[in-house]
């Protein structure tokens, strides 16, 4: 059997969780998922102008009986805070995968403040936070976190560590 990438296994976990809508703000760390979602006839990929739109999109999807995921970078978490009151208050599932910046061999200092605050800010806003550090269990963490979000109807974020994603190389 051909070896599949951890990103492909994460995508398979989203499919197994019956995700039907993927909202995203373009991000290099999510490039595989974004391309796969656009190529998938069973998934609707929606490019957003700002991350908070994806929370409202997911709420609308849930009201209509579909499951959504929001793909964003840690910098986008700061754009989301008040909109998180929507799934929290409505006791709706919310599921997001967050690629981390500012924590591992970060070149750009502007990414550091929000990267350092991401987990605390999400927790303070009522989101359950899980963290994936290694390629071998990233898909399992995504699958278990999606089950937590949709079966228990709570907001859940999986932080994909910058070490896992691979730090951006500005010398390239």
């Amino acid at each position: 059997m051909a070896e599949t990438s951890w990103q492909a296994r994460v995508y398979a976990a989203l499919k197994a969780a019956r995700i039907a809508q993927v909202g995203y703000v373009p991000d290099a760390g999510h490039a595989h998922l974004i391309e796969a979602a656009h190529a998938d006839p069973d998934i609707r990929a929606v490019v957003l102008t700002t991350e908070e739109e994806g929370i409202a999109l997911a709420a609308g999807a849930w009201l209509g009986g579909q499951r959504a995921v929001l793909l964003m970078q840690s910098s986008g978490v700061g754009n989301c805070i008040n909109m998180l009151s929507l799934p929290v208050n409505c006791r709706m599932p919310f599921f997001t995968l967050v690629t981390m910046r500012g924590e591992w061999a970060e070149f750009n200092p502007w990414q550091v403040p929000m990267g350092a605050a991401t987990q605390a800010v999400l927790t303070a806003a009522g989101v359950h936070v899980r963290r994936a550090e290694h390629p071998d269990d990233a898909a399992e963490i995504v699958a278990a976190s999606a089950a937590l979000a949709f079966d228990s109807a709570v907001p859940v974020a999986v932080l994909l560590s910058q070490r896992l994603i691979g730090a951006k190389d500005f010398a390239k």
Partner: protein
Amino acid sequence: MRNDGTLNRRAVAATLLRNPGEMLVVTGLGAPTYDAAAADDRALNFYLWGAMGGAAMVGLGLALAEPSRRVLVLTGDGEMLMGMGSLATIAAAAPANLAIAVLDNARYGETGSQRSHTGLTTDLAAVAAACGWAATATARDMGEVEALTPRLRHEALFAVIRISAEEEARHLPPRDGAHLADRFRRALGVAGD
């Protein structure tokens, strides 16, 4: 640009929401939520009491999930201004079954009637058109509102309705989000999904 709205918001909402059938309605926080509830508090209305700027995107997620049903977002100018980027997002996603009606009084009514950008320099219908909405309209009298009503149920239309800044008595629907979401999903028949 001046605020030239003269229409009564409750009369406008009653017209837009007359005989709604199975239409799915999402309302923006503040007065549009009260207006829709005053017209008829029905299970297929989903009222936002917060999440400012999110009404149009809730409408998009719903429209994509339920492509065979009509979705109408009824919101105010301040709420739409806060989610102005979603006009670009929705135009790009191009759902055929979603329409937005903005009750534009050029004021932030909930906070003391301060002037909004639509009473200063911004034309939201022109913004929507520039974002790629093929159909936009502005209504200034009840005849135009009557003409918009069927269009909002058949077209991917972004409509601005110039209403008077006069405030109406608050008509408060339920505000527990979990209750509103659950009754909506049950009425839609997706509560088990």
